[in-house]
């Protein structure tokens, strides 16, 4: 069917207009490359972060789907494996418990090659509670027979299925996409054989099923089991915020490049309008051009984002494992929504960046369209509107900050709104601030005509430079803010490690040898102080004297000996009557709570809390102090170890050993103690000995890895800002010649012109960096005092590092110099004939 003539005519106008508009890029391929580069970088960083988030969410969903997190656990109080007899006794008593074996298995291919270590679970499908997904999978008779009878079956997560198939010890492998990464599941008997276990790791039971337990066993409700849930969400929210920042900075490039491409085609558009192209068709053609560019940029960006995610995912997985015990696979798992979302966000961002330009092009009448003067007059008005919008955003940031302060709010979204509004508000004010500074400086340079010209010329360039400078401001402020936060975190965390890991050695002996080892160590000449520690679980009950809607919450109990060496260095964030009084109160029956729990439940020193132990007894305890507990996502309560063992039946835990020897003789003392320990208690005990130095080194390694992705994204964002500046400079290089050629004709050499150009940009970037300094420090404060508290439950002290501030200033100049290098080099190499042409034209 052929279209009616009018419709055919409109299509023809649109097609010819679009082809004519796009022909601009054929003559200016560099401009097109920069536009696509901006889109590509913005989309790649955003897509990379989203790919990481999507893969992590997939891992959480699979872990959530596994039966374990939905069932109560039954374990021995002393942490030892359960005997088969204990399981059978419970079954005979009518308890619907199911046996479970868990351990780490090093896979092998039978030829000694190194293979991954996996988590192996052994289950009994006959007794496993019926609503477990794994129980349902073996529900058919044939599947059950295969599972129970030799050679049995083994279900493997997709990432380790191939390695499992290569291991000759394992039963036939079936891939199960719903399993968490690096997990294998098989029959309980097969798992025992593979792990070399006689007993059972634990029993599981449906949450509502009744079971009378002997005193040696403890039941841990499913809801008390650690879940990455909210905390991991916070981590991903932070990642998303970084990705969003990169996207915004990238879109600044796009906006700048589009604006210049449009401005350079004003004459072309006027001609097209004069030749009979309706304004609407012109705007539609420009929209189609944006769509084409957007789709190309999105495709490039998403593919690169996936590659970036592949590169960063191992570090992120390590961070999540270290911070939240969350298992995240190192293989990408991307749902269809990821691909569509990537295209949508790129196109949406492009529409946002280009909408203003389309609107302005549509509103300008055809006779003014070709006059850059009209365009610039609008830019001046736009700058005034920008300043007003910036003021409104800063006001909003102030109001949200005030509300958060007054309401003691821990609202992550409100925190992000405050930070975003403040960043954008200051960015919108930047052109006004720079313009003011330039006017001030120009007035003082009357005796240096070239400098005066350079400053006046820079003022003329500001409308074009404002977007890349805003992008640079955001990137520098984010760089300084995040670096200060991470640097402050590092200093605080390492101090905290030194304070908490006081002992030179830590030993985790088997429960039955704990008492004997404690007495033996106490008698050794190398041992100055023994610091025994125990752990238990309890439930924090709502305060019965305060109106509160808080539900009972699981908390970890930590027992320590308040020895003088510990009292001197253990950090306390808040006390009522000072440190000494707090420690005396602890010995007299009070407890300390960690900052996370104190913030979550609004607990302050002097308050009373109610704890229900595993035996059901409720204890009312007074809080003597709040202590910082960085990196721990859980609520924790500290009390003397003797009381914890007595009141909460805490099993023996670890023994910390503070040596008498000074640093120079430490190794000799350590080695002597280790030898005698091995001789007295055997290698089973001495192998549990951990040197504090190694523990600290491992903690530092985990810390550095945790922030590896932050540093990577930070660097990339700064790179994007440099690209934004380069894009603008290259795109306006030809137009700049009309300003430079008359000066050259008046006797200013090309080398001085190049120096003036570089100086202009360095000054502009330096001014931007000076604005970025207070903004970055404000951002660091927001991160440690608002975002961190809302996301993780603890607050960091604000550290400002003069070295990082100097680095920020230097980075700004380096970024500007790098971006200006190529245009300056082109000017340097330009034949005089070209400058002569420009001079003749002006």
């Amino acid at each position, binding site marked *: 069917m052929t279209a009616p003539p009018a419709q055919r005519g409109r299509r*023809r106008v649109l097609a010819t207009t679009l082809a*004519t508009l796009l022909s601009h*890029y054929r003559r200016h391929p560099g401009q097109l490359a920069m536009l696509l580069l901006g889109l590509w970088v913005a989309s790649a960083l955003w897509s990379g972060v989203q790919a990481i988030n999507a893969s992590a969410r997939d891992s959480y969903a699979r872990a959530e789907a596994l039966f374990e997190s939905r069932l109560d656990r039954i374990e021995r109080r002393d942490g030892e494996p359960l005997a088969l007899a204990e399981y059978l006794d419970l079954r005979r008593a009518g308890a619907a418990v199911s046996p479970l074996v868990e351990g780490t298995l090093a896979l092998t291919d039978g030829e000694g090659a190194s293979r991954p270590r996996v988590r192996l679970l052994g289950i009994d499908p006959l007794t496993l509670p019926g609503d477990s997904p794994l129980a349902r999978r073996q529900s058919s008779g044939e599947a059950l027979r295969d599972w129970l009878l030799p050679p049995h079956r083994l279900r493997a997560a997709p990432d380790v299925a191939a390695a499992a198939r290569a291991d000759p010890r394992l039963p036939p492998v079936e891939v199960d996409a719903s399993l968490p990464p690096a997990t294998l599941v098989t029959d309980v008997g097969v798992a025992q054989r593979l792990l070399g276990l006689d007993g059972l790791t634990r029993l599981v039971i449906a949450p509502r099923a009744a079971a009378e337990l002997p005193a040696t066993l403890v039941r841990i409700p499913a809801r008390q089991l650690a879940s990455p849930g909210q905390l991991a969400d916070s981590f991903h929210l932070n990642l998303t915020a970084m990705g969003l920042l990169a996207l915004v900075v990238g879109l600044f490039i796009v906006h700048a490049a589009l604006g210049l491409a449009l401005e350079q085609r004003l004459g072309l558009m006027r*001609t097209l309008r004069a*030749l009979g192209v309706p304004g*609407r068709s012109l705007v539609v053609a420009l929209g189609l051009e944006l769509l084409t560019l957007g789709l190309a940029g999105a495709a490039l960006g998403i593919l690169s984002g996936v590659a970036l995610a592949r590169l960063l995912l191992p570090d992120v997985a390590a961070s999540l494992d270290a911070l939240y015990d969350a298992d995240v696979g190192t293989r990408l798992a991307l749902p269809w929504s990821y691909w569509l979302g990537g295209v949508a966000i790129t196109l949406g961002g492009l529409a946002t960046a280009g909408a203003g330009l389309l609107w302005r092009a549509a509103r300008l009448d055809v*006779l003014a369209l*070709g006059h850059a003067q009209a365009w610039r007059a609008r830019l001046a008005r736009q700058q005034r509107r920008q300043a007003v919008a910036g003021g409104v955003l800063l006001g909003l940031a102030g109001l949200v900050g005030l509300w958060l302060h007054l309401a003691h709010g821990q609202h992550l979204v409100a925190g992000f709104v405050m930070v975003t509004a403040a960043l954008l508000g200051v960015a919108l004010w930047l052109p006004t601030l720079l313009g003011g500074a330039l006017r001030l400086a120009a007035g003082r340079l009357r005796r240096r005509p070239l400098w005066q010209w350079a400053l006046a010329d820079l003022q003329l360039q500001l409308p074009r430079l404002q977007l890349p400078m805003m992008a640079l401001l955001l990137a520098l402020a984010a760089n300084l803010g995040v670096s200060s936060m991470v640097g402050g975190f590092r200093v605080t965390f390492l101090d905290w490690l030194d304070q908490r890991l006081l002992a030179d050695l830590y030993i985790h002996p088997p429960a039955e040898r704990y008492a004997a080892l404690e007495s033996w160590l106490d008698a050794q000449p190398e041992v100055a102080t023994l610091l025994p520690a125990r752990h238990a679980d309890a439930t924090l009950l709502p305060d019965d004297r305060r109106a509160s809607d808080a539900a009972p919450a699981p908390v970890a109990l930590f027992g320590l000996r308040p020895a003088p060496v510990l009292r001197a260095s253990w950090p306390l964030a808040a006390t009522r009557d000072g440190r000494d009084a707090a420690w005396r109160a602890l010995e007299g029956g009070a407890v300390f709570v960690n900052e996370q729990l104190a913030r979550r439940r609004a607990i302050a020193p002097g308050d009373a809390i109610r704890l229900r132990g595993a035996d059901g007894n409720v204890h009312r305890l007074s809080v003597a102090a709040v202590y910082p507990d960085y990196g721990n996502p859980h609520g924790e309560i500290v009390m003397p170890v003797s009381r914890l063992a007595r009141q909460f039946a805490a099993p023996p835990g670890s023994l910390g050993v503070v040596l008498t020897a000074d640093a120079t003789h430490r190794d000799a003392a350590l080695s002597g103690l280790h030898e005698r320990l091995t001789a007295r208690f055997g290698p089973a005990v001495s192998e549990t000995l951990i040197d504090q130095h190694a523990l600290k080194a491992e903690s530092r390694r985990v810390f550095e890895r945790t922030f590896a992705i932050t540093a990577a994204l930070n660097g990339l964002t700064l790179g994007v800002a440099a690209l934004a500046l380069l894009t603008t400079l290259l795109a306006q290089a030809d137009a700049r010649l009309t300003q430079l050629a008359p000066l050259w004709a008046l006797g200013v050499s090309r080398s001085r012109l190049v120096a003036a150009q570089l100086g202009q940009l360095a000054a502009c970037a330096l001014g931007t960096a000076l604005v970025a300094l207070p903004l970055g420090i404000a951002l660091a404060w927001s991160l440690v005092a608002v975002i961190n508290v809302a996301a993780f439950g603890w607050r960091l002290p604000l550290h400002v590092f003069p070295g990082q501030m100097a680095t920020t200033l230097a980075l700004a100049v380096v970024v500007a110099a790098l971006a200006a290098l190529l245009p300056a080099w082109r000017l340097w190499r330009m034949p005089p004939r070209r400058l002569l042409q420009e001079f003749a034209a002006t």
Partner: protein
Amino acid sequence: MLQLTDVAKSYPTPQGPLFVLDGIDLRLAPGESLALMGESGSGKSTLLHLAAGLDTPDRGEIVLGARALSSLDEAGRADLRRQRLGLVFQQFHLVPSLSVLDNLTLQARLADREDRDWTHHLIERLGLAGLEGRYPEQLSGGQQQRLAIGRALAPRPELLLADEPTGNLDEGAADQVLDLLRALIGESDCALLMVTHSARVAAPLDRCVHLHHGRLADRTP
């Protein structure tokens, strides 16, 4: 072909509206050529813009063919311009990113009235043969203006509006361009309204009118 009746146009200034055209009555017959003369700022270009539908008058009526421009919206005026008018500017306004051939056929393609024989004829007559693949910046001023005339005539318009078409050329090149313009107009049976401040340029045309302070001050038969 073109009829202006009591047309007025003003621009706002801090001192009140400034009338650049006031009470203009003008008529142009099919195939007729008319020179519109006047000093700088007399309103010549404004009148041309109004006739082309690029701008709208404050008062009065402009009729092109049988259509009153006031009855058309922006898209309608653009359609009329595309299908029935040819425009030649003093600054040429060629598209720098299109080749000579693409520039020459641009309006014809927009109007869906591309005629290969006529295009070929124009290229020959305009002296652009062999230059089709070049870009405007690679042409001399005279060649660029001839190309702009070719672009305006390629869709065979009923009326050619030319704003100082030789203003940017030296005398010799200007004469060549004008001779060519008149000859091609004769071949395509097109009316011509040409703005100029030069009596020498205006002399060969059928009629000449003078604009003075926004009013038609003098008529030359």
